[in-house]
């Protein structure tokens, strides 16, 4: 474990935790601009988090410790996921702890906790949200695994850092298997982060909401943590996408200068990604809940096709 390793590890976590709301603000701002609104500004998520953290938490009678613990667990899972995704550097001392499969497991832990917490109060919307979240989760999880498997098969490793190092050192070309996987990954990210074709983060319309129904009973600091965790999840997914499909510029071991350069490069990539996300969200319409399985099944199939293409073409 080298000093640069420790630094890049700490940097990765801090940037994820502190930068995630900024990415969220950026996406929301672009959504506003694309809809001809002036928008609340880039820093609005920070202000919202600050406000929520200061408020008292109102908790339903009969909420169990599971309900109270879930925001902390969900937040920690997301933070740990950012610790193992190579955002700036592949020199991460924590990366051997969890590989790509364990990363999917980590997201599953967060999902199960938040679903159980939603069921805990025993309200109609809570169970509705939990049911829909688990539905989306069980369809998205295998699709995400398949995307990661395609990358793993190419690089002969499930360790995220090895995958990124391997992919970054290949000669520049369009790999058909990765192209399929990339489309599948985009689909999955929209579903997992409750974005527009699947869910609308800005709605509280009862019958259509998924993520919002899950967290309806949370308030104050608990809500702040969950919203923050959602922002980190978006950040994490964006970074996975960048790491798998645009890995150039991510620093490697013992390269402090590359680490310095990686930060602005990553920021530019994230900004572009956020803009694209807002653009896709603006031009697409939300689909009915029972169209979501078809949407995710196509993501799953695309990922599987990507893997088959890898076997057929060897690329």
């Amino acid at each position, binding site marked *: 474990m080298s000093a640069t390793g420790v630094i890049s590890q700490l940097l990765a976590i801090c940037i994820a935790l502190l930068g995630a709301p900024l990415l969220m603000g950026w996406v929301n701002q672009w959504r506003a601009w694309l809809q001809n609104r002036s928008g609340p500004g880039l820093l609005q998520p920070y202000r919202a988090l600050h406000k929520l953290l200061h408020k008292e938490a*109102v*908790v339903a009678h009969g909420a169990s410790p599971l309900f109270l613990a879930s925001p902390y667990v969900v937040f920690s899972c997301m933070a740990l996921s950012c610790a193992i995704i190579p955002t700036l550097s592949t020199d991460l001392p*924590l990366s051997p702890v969890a590989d790509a499969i364990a990363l999917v497991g980590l997201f599953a832990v967060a999902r199960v906790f938040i679903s159980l917490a939603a069921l805990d109060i025993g309200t109609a919307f809570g169970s509705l949200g939990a049911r829909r979240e688990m539905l989306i989760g069980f369809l998205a999880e295998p699709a995400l695994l398949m995307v990661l498997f395609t990358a793993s098969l190419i690089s002969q490793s499930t360790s995220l850092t090895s995958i990124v190092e391997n992919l970054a050192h290949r000669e520049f070309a369009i790999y058909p298997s990765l192209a399929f996987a990339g489309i599948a990954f985009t689909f999955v990210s929209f579903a997992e982060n409750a974005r527009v074709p699947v869910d609308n983060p800005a709605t509280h319309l009862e019958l259509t909401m998924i993520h919002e129904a899950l967290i309806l009973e949370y308030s104050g600091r608990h809500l702040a943590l969950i919203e923050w965790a959602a922002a980190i999840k978006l950040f994490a997914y964006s970074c996975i996408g960048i790491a798998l499909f645009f890995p150039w510029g991510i620093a490697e071991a013992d390269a402090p200068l590359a680490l310095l350069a990686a930060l602005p490069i990553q920021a530019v990539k994230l900004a572009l990604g956020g803009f694209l996300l807002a653009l896709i969200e603006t031009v697409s319409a939300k689909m009915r809940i029972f169209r979501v399985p078809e949407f995710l099944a196509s993501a799953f199939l695309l990922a599987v096709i990507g893997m088959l293409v890898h*076997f057929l073409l060897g690329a």
Partner: protein
Amino acid sequence: MPTEAGHLLAIDGVLIVIALWLAIGAAGIAALHRFTLISQVLFPLGGLAGLALAAIAFCGLLAGPQVAILPIGLPTLPFHLRLDSLSAYFLIVLGSAGAGISLFAAGYFRRGEGTAPGLLCLQYHLFLASMALVLLADDAYAFMVAWETMALSSFFLVTTNHRVAEIRRAGYLYLLIAHIGAIAILLCFGVLQANSGDYTFANMRQQTPDAFWASAAFLLALLGFGAKAGMVPLHVWLPEAHPAAPSPVSAMMSGIMLKTAIYGLLRISFDLLQVQLWWWGVAMLALGLVTAILGVAFATVQTDMKRLLAYSSIENIGLLLVGMGLGLLFKAYGMATLAALALTATLYHVLGHAFFKSLLFVGTGAVLHATGERNLGRLGGLLRYMPWVGWLVLLGVFAGSGLPPLSGFVAEWLLLQSFLFSPGLPDPFLNMLIPLIAAAIALVAALAGYAMVKFFGIIFLGQPREEKLAQAHDGGLWEKAGMLWLAGGCLLLGLLPNFVIQLIDPVTRLLVQYGYATSASQHGAWLLVPMSVDRASYGPLYFLLGVTAFSLLLYWLVRKLYSAQLRRADPWDCGYPFQTPRMQDTAEGLGQPIRVIFTPFFRITRHEPSPFDREPKYSLLLEDHFWYWLYLPIARLIGWIARQVGRLQQGRIAIYLLYSFLTLLFMLFLVKR
């Protein structure tokens, strides 16, 4: 007895434990109605014996194979027994998980329910002893005697409440399928001994049957052991027998007895048969996959908590079959390292599943005792009234959903790794098929999480759906002890993968001549590294520490820096003030998306109310297609044959005399000819 002077071998220790279990059973008969003695002394003693068995088997695992000959049975046919690493590993599973179940059982059985307590004690310990003997048997004769004792004792345990007609019916179905399986196993041994007339396993290992007979033996074994394990399409007895049996018995059957079938399959296909054909692996993979997907789809739509768990067991058996099939495939192609990886995943899951499924089943037992309800639609909110049971079951639920850092995830992780490293099979078509199976496995694992969230959420979370649930009481002392042991097992098996792989190493060395003990621990005991750290690694303890420490730090920071105020109020629920517990999702409701997506899997009979009904009623019946496709046609055919034969029965003496006369004539004709 093989005892050398003053030196006790591990196999003798195992025999002593078996004898102890039989003695406990006999003591139970002697104290037929002395309930306190049986529950407070005999059952815990049986549990301790289980622990001792696990410890002895652990010693036996590291020693070489040991043999013994028990001079019981027929004069020329003694019982040949042998303790090798495969038996020892499964004995560890039996002893360690069985100990927790026995402790729970000490507090579970109640006075005046069905079978007399002493008889129950005999059946229970006979069941344990026969399972141990199955694992030790080294000839077909001893194996079949033990196997049948196991089937019969568990049949009587299933029908403990024999006054209920449904339970008798479930027991009958179980017995029937168990015997179909037993016939297949018997025939399999018949094929394996290859006309040599010697039924010892040692002789079977010597035989070199040609491809046809080897395949016949393998398919018979797959059929026979598959019937016991709950492989599709022979799975129908599981969802009937498990809800019928008392919960510790369901735990024992699901957690341990199903694994004896896995043991049998491993023993025959990897040890007794000297050649493996690649298509055996494909057949096993395909059957396992169908079993897993069907099991998990059915589990998510169940409304009875024990049926849900029974279907979840079917799913897990499917995963085990997939792992074994993959192992067979690799072994057939001579890829020992990959075969060992697939088998390591399988054996890991055998141990992990034994613990978490036992925990979940005994948890349903505690709930059943506290509420008298098995129907998920009438439960809810029990975490408040039964915190011990609830929180411990939550651990089992996490393990069952395959979430890190618990035991289920490690097995799943290893299995997916063996899929990922599979490229390089000589057959390009297979090479492409294998990742598709990995995709299906990922789907099954995610759906299993759905089923488990449903199981826990409906029973323990939300508001109580019935008034009487507020009177539910937590488990007793023995029950808590048993559940603690099992939950601790789930946690430790998840956190110490390298230790478990140390146990599995001698087994895979025996079966495929390769083991992962050294390479798994190459980066220390806390990091699981199957090949090299660049390829894949997983450190569950760091994982747990990371999440826990970060959560605690966050908790402290948020309360320190911001507000720690907390106010209790009515649930918000979008401002709707008239919430009732009936507005929560029912078990049907939570399973509805899966029912819609997987509609072709189920035979659905649904009655929907029309808008003009005065008393609107909704009913939904979900059934298994296999009943209508396979079992009922066979039953009808047998019924038809029986009716045709029944025509002979006229009930008049004159006709029967005519039969005798005709038979006599026929015989005379034969003799004269």
